[in-house]
């Protein structure tokens, strides 16, 4: 293999591969990036067997071929090169990659490119649809934060993605996530092309979903969602992300979303967020409880910290006459919802400390959040 490419054009696909390459080992296939030079330019691939990313870049190909080298090392080298450099990549018979730019050159030891698992790059041709990327991005933003952060319950380790037909040329997209303590649901009707109306449902592991956010940063306004075997594949901006679905059954989320709460209060999202932030500024452990009390048109927020002290703040709620309520929350759960819901106002519907609290906004009908209180 022998190619010439701009530093900037080379850095983008390498950057995208960083989330997938294993940083702990140096010689495993999972730590490597596979580069193949064909007639149309370069294709970069990296895999951890569950998530595989493929990105393309145009380059001047003088000699076709492939290499498999440590992905982080290559990215570090390329990043350190002067901007505007023209980089020449050459492979030799010992799987080594020579990187030349200006007066510097580097050699990276590699392994046989055939070691890269072929199953990681499954052929396309599955059922698919193409839709507006910004919608997918917005829904991810509203759900990814509440995915279970460990793998103790595999079904909760990813975002549930559901696709259903709507009117002609449209699809209903739904994303749901939960960590067992709170739940986020975002759904939108989007313009869909190339969609045959089939219903899809799968769980996308949080690591794959985080990579998806990364590839959606590019300039391409659309994303193709494709179901290939056990994988779901997202393609956008010359990058292709293949994620093995979590084969578990997602819990019945509709059962835990309450219709309404006994007490309904609406207030400015930013003021709720900054009040909670102030009150929790003393918090020094993750288990601290935000105590919320509503009485006589006032919502008071309070947090006590055994060793430090306590914080108290009141928010006036002119429309809450007659509401009396005492309930505790993990303050982070409320702050994170305020953070992702980009609306002026936010509505909380609460009943008591044992019942789920519903959070939504009239300005954004498709998004619903449920937070279980803490039992005081």
């Amino acid at each position, binding site marked *: 293999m022998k190619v010439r490419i701009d530093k900037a054009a080379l850095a983008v696909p390498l950057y995208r591969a960083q989330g997938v390459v294993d940083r702990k080992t140096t010689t495993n296939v999972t730590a490597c990036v596979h580069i193949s030079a064909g007639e149309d330019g370069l294709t970069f691939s990296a895999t951890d067997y569950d998530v595989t990313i493929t990105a393309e870049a145009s380059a001047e190909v003088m000699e076709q071929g492939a290499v498999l080298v440590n992905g982080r090392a290559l990215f570090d080298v390329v990043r350190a090169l002067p901007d505007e450099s023209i980089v020449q990549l050459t492979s030799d018979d010992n799987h080594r990659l020579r990187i030349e730019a200006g007066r510097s050159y580097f050699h990276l030891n590699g392994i046989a490119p055939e070691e890269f698992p072929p199953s990681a790059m499954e052929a396309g041709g599955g059922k698919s649809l193409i839709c507006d990327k910004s919608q997918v991005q917005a829904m991810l933003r509203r759900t990814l934060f509440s995915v279970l952060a460990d793998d103790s319950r595999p079904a909760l380790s990813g975002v549930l993605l559901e696709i259903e037909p709507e009117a002609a040329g449209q699809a209903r997209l739904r994303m749901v996530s939960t960590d*067992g303590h709170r739940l986020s649901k975002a759904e939108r009707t989007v313009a869909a092309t190339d969609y045959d109306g089939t219903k899809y449902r799968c769980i996308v592991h949080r690591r794959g979903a985080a990579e998806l956010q990364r590839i959606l940063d590019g300039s391409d306004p659309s994303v193709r969602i494709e179901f290939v075997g056990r994988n779901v594949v997202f393609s956008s901006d010359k990058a292709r992300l293949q994620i093995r679905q979590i084969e578990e059954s997602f819990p019945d989320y509709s059962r835990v979303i309450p219709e309404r709460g006994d007490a309904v209060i609406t207030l400015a999202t930013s003021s709720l967020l900054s009040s909670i932030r102030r009150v929790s500024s003393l918090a020094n452990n993750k288990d601290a409880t935000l105590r919320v009390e509503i009485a006589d048109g006032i919502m008071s927020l309070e947090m006590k910290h055994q060793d430090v002290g306590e914080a108290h703040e009141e928010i006036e709620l002119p429309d809450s006459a007659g509401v009396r309520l005492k309930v505790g929350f993990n303050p982070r759960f409320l702050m994170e919802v305020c953070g992702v819901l980009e609306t002026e106002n936010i509505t909380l519907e609460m009943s008591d*400390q044992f019942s789920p609290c519903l959070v939504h906004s009239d300005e954004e009908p498709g998004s619903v959040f449920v937070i279980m209180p803490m*039992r005081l």
Partner: protein
Amino acid sequence: MSRSTSPGRWSRIIVHADMDAFYAAVEQLDRPELRGKPLLIGGTGPRSVVATASYEARPFGVGSAMPMGLALRKCPQAIVVPPRLARYAEVSDRIMSVFATFSPLVEALSLDEAFLDLTGAEGLFGPPEEMARRIKGAVREATGLTVSVGVAPNKYVAKVASDIRKPDGLCVVPPDGVRAFLDPLPVSRLWGVGKHGEERLQDMGLRTLADVAAADPAWLERRLGSMGPHVHALAQGIDPRPVVPDREAKSIGSEVTLDDDVVGRAAITPHLLREADRVGRRLRRAGLRAGGVRVKLKTTKFQLLTRQTALHPPTSSGDVLYREALRLLDAFDLGVPMRLVGLAAYDLADAAAPVQGELFGQEGRERQQRLDQAVDALRSRFGKAAVRRGSEIEDEGPERQPDRMRD
């Protein structure tokens, strides 16, 4: 500040207090007709073992963990008494409260033994020997039972010291007397070595702690792996581990170095059950809940394997710890023989703190919680022995644990 220099300077004053034949002593206390007679506490089932033998039975060669059938052949006149764990736990609570009057730093190892850090308390309780006498007196007054006490500059030496003059023993090992005290002792006195480790040391020609202390540390490490530096330090009387009260611990764990190696799931699970029960009890006593559980296995080649998982919601229940530990077992290669089985609870939080509610599968947990509350209510009205788990009645494990872990 001037201090007597004759017994050497005490950098720390660590007390190990160990009740004498605890289960048997409680039975003899509650039932005067059993006093002075050989007792074996334990079940009578085919797989039962002796949990505790009274001192009257010990001259016959009977000891803890011995199969009940064998013990009865050695001492046919012994009276077998089924264990009453709830009663022992009640007495244990009294003993631990006595310890707490001497120091806030009390680390309970099990129902009947604890470490106390009394560093700097000479002004209150007098010199180490006087401290030990006061502790023994206070325990006797509160419970009518005798305790053996060892005082030394660190945990290991204190533990050996409490055992050396049992029963009703009192042994103070001052800093400058540590080596003279340890040197003649056999290698079986090393802590956390187990029967196999002991045999290996014997095979290496090491008989006494003096032999181990004098051995080349590099050679010990080559022959024993990570255990090498550990035994070398102990044999020299070096043990920097602090006394950590459960309340302040980052994790609470319990583990045993097994007398016989075990292979396979079925052989490991009974040990896990016992450790889970123990850890659960210690969590509840400390008023804590754990947000995670870790299983620790050590192969006979001294390879340490651990697997852990988060607990949703946090728990102090031995049952839940055990159930999650069983799931973790699937992630180990259980085909190799193991010499140590341990379980630890981590991510500890105050049990009185508000609990995060669960969205899914709440019904089952609420039922369990109602059950726990009902049992607690019964116990507070009718005493702790009013309600017991079936598993607490038959086949108690041996009263002691050889060693335990703490991080």
